[in-house]
């Protein structure tokens, strides 16, 4: 008997059929990975299981042999289903303990909160997820992104679930923490917990999953045992076509230095120096929190830096605001797409055109017709999938949102393009398109500074790799000699 069986689940939203008769099984003590591009229906399926959405009539959820109609989140929890969302559900202003036991705090016999019990229980949970050194009273806002993610997992574990759903659990955590998480998952398997694991990172799926189910456009594609699956096979199932290997371009590095950073020091980084040539892709690698984004933000004029020099095309610059950096030919695609990249309620066209309003321009510019043409051109060039340029960006998939942000800068024809985690939360198809785009830009002479935590991405794209560790450069590698292991060793500060 399966621990969980989903039979013929469909879900219709006004205008969209998000799920089309999907079936899925989960055994106890199993890790079952769920793959598919953004919009394939993974999150919808999991939201149905967690009680947040109701399936269309005709679908069945069978839990340990009994048909269940899960009406809401609390019922799902009582049935032993816990979900760790991709988007955080923690309150920054409360302590770790209060977050973990939100809505189910232990009570003493007077019906008041039993803090001693709460903190003791929380300590146990923190130790399980590898955060044993943190006090349960710590406020969540003081945690790093990775620690928050682990607390989020702890919150799910505190319910003692029979079924644990992990939706992109490693999106913001480092390699070492990922290894700890995998250890935790293996322990949970031994106790008979069934785990549904959703991730874009295929390498992780192969490392942890027992079976893999692929969804595409809301429809079930296939379920494979992990041993029989490999990346090309999965990608083909997910996107329905072969993508082929990414071929490195012939480099036309011209020895002209587009961007040079000398001894840059700020709050979270010290003595950073590198040269970026025209037509080159230079990667800044390192663990989350190593200070890579901070360096990029300082270069772009967003944050202040204490000392050091920035040279663009042979001229020393000091940018007091991104507007100055834009005027000097720089562009920056931020890591946090939702909060810093897009204008969610504005149209695709308006999002693409945002950078046309940079700087000190007061007048009418080159006119509305000219702007519309610019937007249309990027829309076509980047194959942004949307009903029209007037579509609100919030409703697009992550990949198309990212292409919109890229289009904003490409319309300015930047000389130096800084991309921070350009494929974070982007589906496989769009990911390859973004890779090809970056390579094309480099071939045309754009200097690209790539910040990425995905090592295969760094290795596939970069010509040179500068590795940061705790705010300092711990090494530089040529693409030819670099390996994932080599980068990791530098990133962890081991020489």
């Amino acid at each position: 008997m399966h621990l969980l069986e989903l039979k013929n689940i469909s879900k219709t939203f006004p205008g969209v059929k998000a799920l089309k008769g999907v079936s899925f099984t989960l055994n106890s003590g199993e890790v079952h990975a769920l793959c598919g591009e953004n919009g394939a229906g993974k999150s919808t399926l999991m939201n149905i299981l967690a009680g947040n959405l109701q399936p269309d009539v005709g679908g069945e959820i069978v839990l340990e042999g009994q048909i269940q109609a899960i009406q809401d989140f609390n019922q799902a929890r009582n049935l032993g289903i816990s979900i760790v969302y991709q988007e955080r559900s923690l309150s920054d202003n409360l302590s770790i303990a209060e977050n973990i036991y939100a809505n189910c705090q232990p009570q003493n016999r007077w019906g008041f909160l039993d803090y001693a019990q709460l903190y003791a229980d929380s300590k146990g949970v923190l130790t399980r997820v590898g955060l044993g050194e943190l006090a349960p009273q710590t406020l969540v806002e003081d945690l790093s992104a990775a620690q928050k993610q682990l607390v989020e997992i702890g919150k799910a574990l505190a319910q003692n679930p029979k079924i644990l759903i992990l939706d992109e659990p490693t999106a913001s955590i480092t390699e070492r923490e990922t290894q700890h998480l995998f250890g935790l998952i293996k322990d949970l398997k031994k106790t008979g917990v069934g785990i549904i694991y959703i991730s874009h990172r295929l390498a992780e799926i192969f490392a942890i999953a027992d079976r893999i189910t692929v969804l595409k456009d809301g429809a079930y594609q296939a379920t494979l045992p992990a041993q029989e699956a490999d990346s090309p096979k999965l990608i083909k199932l997910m996107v329905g076509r072969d993508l082929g290997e990414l071929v490195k371009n012939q480099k036309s590095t011209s020895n002209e230095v587009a961007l040079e950073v000398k001894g840059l020091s700020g709050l979270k980084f010290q003595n950073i120096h590198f040269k970026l040539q025209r037509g080159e892709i230079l990667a800044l690698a390192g663990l989350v929190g190593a200070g890579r984004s901070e360096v990029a933000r300082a270069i772009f004029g967003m944050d202040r830096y204490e000392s050091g020099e920035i040279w663009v095309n042979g001229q020393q610059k000091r940018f007091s605001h991104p507007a100055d950096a834009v005027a000097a030919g720089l562009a920056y695609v931020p890591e946090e797409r939702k909060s810093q990249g897009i204008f969610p309620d504005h149209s695709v066209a308006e999002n693409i055109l945002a950078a046309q309003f940079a700087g000190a321009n007061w007048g009418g510019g080159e006119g509305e017709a000219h702007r519309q043409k610019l937007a249309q051109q990027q829309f076509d060039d980047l194959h942004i999938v949307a009903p029209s340029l007037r579509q609100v960006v919030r409703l697009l998939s992550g990949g198309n949102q990212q292409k919109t942000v890229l289009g904003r800068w490409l319309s300015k024809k930047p000389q130096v393009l800084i991309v921070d985690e350009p494929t974070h939360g982007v589906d496989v198809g769009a990911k390859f398109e973004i890779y090809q785009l970056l390579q094309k830009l480099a071939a045309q002479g754009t200097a690209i500074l790539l910040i990425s935590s995905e090592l295969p991405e760094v290795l596939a794209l970069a010509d040179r790799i500068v590795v940061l560790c705790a705010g300092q450069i711990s090494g530089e590698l040529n693409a030819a000699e670099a390996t994932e292991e080599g980068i990791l060793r530098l990133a962890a500060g081991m020489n």
Partner: protein
Amino acid sequence: MKQLLQDRVATLGILILLIGIGASLAFPQQFPTFDNLQQIVLNVSIETIVAIGMMILMIAGTFDLSVGSVLALSGSLAAWMLVQGYPMPIAVVVALLSALAVGWFNGFFIARIGINALIQTLATMGIVRGLVLLVAGSGIQDLPYSFIYIGQSKMLKVQSPIWWMLALLLVFHLLLKRSIFFRRYYYIGGNERAADLSGIRVGNMKLYGFVLSALLAGVAGILLTSRLGAAISSMGKGTELRVITAVILGGASLSGGQGRILGAFLGSLFMGLIANIMVLARVSGAWQDIILGLILVAAIGFDVVLRNRAGR
């Protein structure tokens, strides 16, 4: 149809038209006369000028509670200077400069230092109201004709505040639609951090926004004082809340990023229309506030429901 329902300028315009037709049928003698209609517009004209500035701030995702005090300061200062014997143009310019200074004071602390706009403009509202009491005392009367003329003259049978309002509406409508400078406010309201990273100087733009809003409140103060023929220290009390109500009715949202100048006008006009009909129907003033409050909740509730449906 759905798009039409989501465009506040369209829905509000139609609503105003329907209410106007209804009122014409109910009060055929009093309502649809040139004098009454002009009176409605005249009554809202001065606050509509304030609403233009508020609309721009709300598009940028912020607002200014001190506009009523600034209105009173500008009017009182002009009146005080006139009584002291300064020529009219100098009195007006100094009054407008005082408004500009208050706007800069707000903008500086909000955009540069980082004080929350609610707190900053609330404080300014009190500070400036105190200054008004110092300047105007129990009121300043006997203003010269050259000043009274500004707000009491007529052109083509239409009172001058209406012309001032129409001119400013037109200018800012075009600026917000066409100019790079003002279009930036939509981006700032849409996502402040993304706007900064797109090279828009958000801090500067906000500062200019507060200066502009105060300046428009200053213009309104001169017009009001001129119309009244006197400066009264309680001028502009409650203006900020009426103006914010009008602007929200006209399609602005508290989170920013949307709104049009035409909406600011229609929002004001709608409120003036309701007030006028209440008077014709001999409804007490208390009911006006109750009904206006209910209309505000209904309008925004309608919006939220519609958006939630569209978002799925």
